[in-house]
């Protein structure tokens, strides 16, 4: 397994200094970009992949578990935070149903009647988004704590944090997508 940390020349640990990572990436990208003298497309793509891996905490934690512990985790992924999961699912469905109804609507009066409902849907979306963001803040704290204990950390800890984080970012994307839809189609 190739080591993305080594490729970018950054320390092999859970928490990375974002600025340092970006700076290393910029420096290496300038060297191997195909437009540069002595550039190399394959090397550039490899660098690209490594940077994408390290930039995202989820991929980074998984990669770390793989490189350091040779552990990719078992396939039985821990289930997401179930109450939040339900909230996200419900509000996304409600939003989708509302958007569909508004899209199909054929009269100005019906759309006008729907406006206040739209405001409510948006508020609910906002509340759930805030809950997800709160959970993400907590995940960041957990990452910091793991990093403090590094390297006295079990691979499962890395993978569990990564998997919870992955759910959160995915929900965040879906929620903001739904909010865009509400806002822009109005």
């Amino acid at each position: 397994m190739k080591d993305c940390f080594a490729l970018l020349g950054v320390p092999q640990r859970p928490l990375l200094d974002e600025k340092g990572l970006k700076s290393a990436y910029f420096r290496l990208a300038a060297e191997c970009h195909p437009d540069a003298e002595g550039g190399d497309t394959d090397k550039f793509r490899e660098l690209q992949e490594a940077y994408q891996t390290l930039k995202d905490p989820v991929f980074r934690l998984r990669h770390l578990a793989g490189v350091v512990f040779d552990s990719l985790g078992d396939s039985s992924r821990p289930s997401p935070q179930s109450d939040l999961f339900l909230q996200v699912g419900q509000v996304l469905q409600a939003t989708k149903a509302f958007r569909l109804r508004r899209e199909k609507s054929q009269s100005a009066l019906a759309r006008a009647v729907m406006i206040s409902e739209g405001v409510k849907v948006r508020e609910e979306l906002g509340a759930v988004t805030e809950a997800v963001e709160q959970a993400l803040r907590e995940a960041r704290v957990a990452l910091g704590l793991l990093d403090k204990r590094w390297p006295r950390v079990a691979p499962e800890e890395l993978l569990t944090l990564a998997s919870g984080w992955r759910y959160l970012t995915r929900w965040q994307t879906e929620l903001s997508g739904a909010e865009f839809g509400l806002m822009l189609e109005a």
Partner: protein
Amino acid sequence: MIVGIDLGTTNSLIGAMDAGFPVLFADKDGGRLTPSLVFIPDEGEPVAGRQAAQHAEAIFSVKRQMGNAKVESNREGGLLKKAIAPEEVAAVILKKLKADAERASGQPVERAVITVPAYFNEAQRAATKRAGELAGFTVERLLSEPTAAALAYGLDRLGEKSKVAVYDFGGGTFDVSVLELGEGVFHVLSTHGDTHLGGDDLDAALAAKFGISRAEAADGKKDPSGAGFSESDFSATCLSIIERTRGHCLRSLHDAGLKAGDIEEVILVGGVTRMPLVREFVREVFGREPNLSQHPDEAVALGAVIQAGILDGSVQNVTLLDVTPLSLGIETFGGLMNVLIPRNTTIPCKAGEMFTNAAIHQEAMKISILQGEREMAADNWKLGEFSIPFTPAARGLVRIGVQFELDANGLLHVLGRDVATGDDITFAIRSAVEVSDEAVEKMLADSLEHAFEDMDDRQFVEAGLKADEMLPAVDTALQRLGSAVTGEEREAVAAWVEKVTEAREARSLRRLKAALGGLDAATEPLAARLVEAVMDGKL
């Protein structure tokens, strides 16, 4: 020498690096802007630019048709005697620019960087490259317009670190890109846009609103009071178009993982950004004064020149990390799009997928390549369809690897490999044009056939749905507005409601449509009052 070219919808420019500085060439009339107009006479050489402008039958805004099969009409909307491919028309403009550059620099010019709207898809990019080749250029690079503008902005700020947005509103296309600059690297984080949104659309809207010609509208928007437009009509008409850029700005920020407040400069380019209304709009969306340091007409061309300099070595210590604007993927069994390269991935890049045979007697695998952001395969652009042949084997034994490669131009190359034999198969992306001609005709034929079959039935069902929606809405509106509805209004609404119900029972399409129209009109003031009440926070 490599030249940089901005092939614009309205205006085109060409230039090259000179003693370390990007410069633009003037033509023999002394102008740096070449109007993107082409006149093709029945006999003799086609002409471009100011020479073409004298002819009412000149072709304009050909850039908006790049990627289509044919250009069919001229400036006046008249049909051309002979339809012609858009890239052939664009090539006439590029040839003229090439001659200007050769005259100005005193040397032959063969290699070029040409800019394209960031949001151009594969077919539009391929057509642009082809136009360059038809004009006798080796096209060294297709460069995104907002990225080019960022290069022009950032070249003398290489030491600084900052996050910037480029808002490029030109004659025919709109793009917005978010970039991070630092240590000589121009890193595009995200881009969004609309390849059919620009000054042309403002002109069309104004022409319709004020009953004037397109050319009068184009001039009038530069000086609305001089043109005698009423201020409120003018701004309402323009804003309805300008407003369409908002979603792209927000999405671009979102994709970059940034908030408006994180952006340190919003750079305006494109002729339309001269309008005070546009500047005001940008100020509102990004919450800051836009940066006007760049010449709205020239920044993109200067950026193309700088990229040319990067390629020929005359510009050093500058690296451009650009992205692909649209996701690329393949169609899966359920008719869904399976994304292999997500939008905003840094180019050049590569991605692959393994496929296996589903049946024993299968001899080939069909793979459809898609570009776009929609979930359903059919809603995206289909770039091509390939059939990969292989020797039949037991189910699951054949393994075919398909690899997508996006080059630095954002152009796609596809490679298929039979893992068992190691045979490589490369595919040329068949231009979308060839596919669409027949396909479009067939689609049209299909839809016409069905249209006549069940038109009345369908219309009655549709009108019924509208009635289902309106009648409860009327009740809710009357209840919510309470005393804000006059007795007279109530009576009128009630009368139309009754007519709708009657027409429905009688199953008369004509009467139902008329009654719904009447109800729409009668409830219009109620709808307006409801919207107002919500906005005022009264409901």
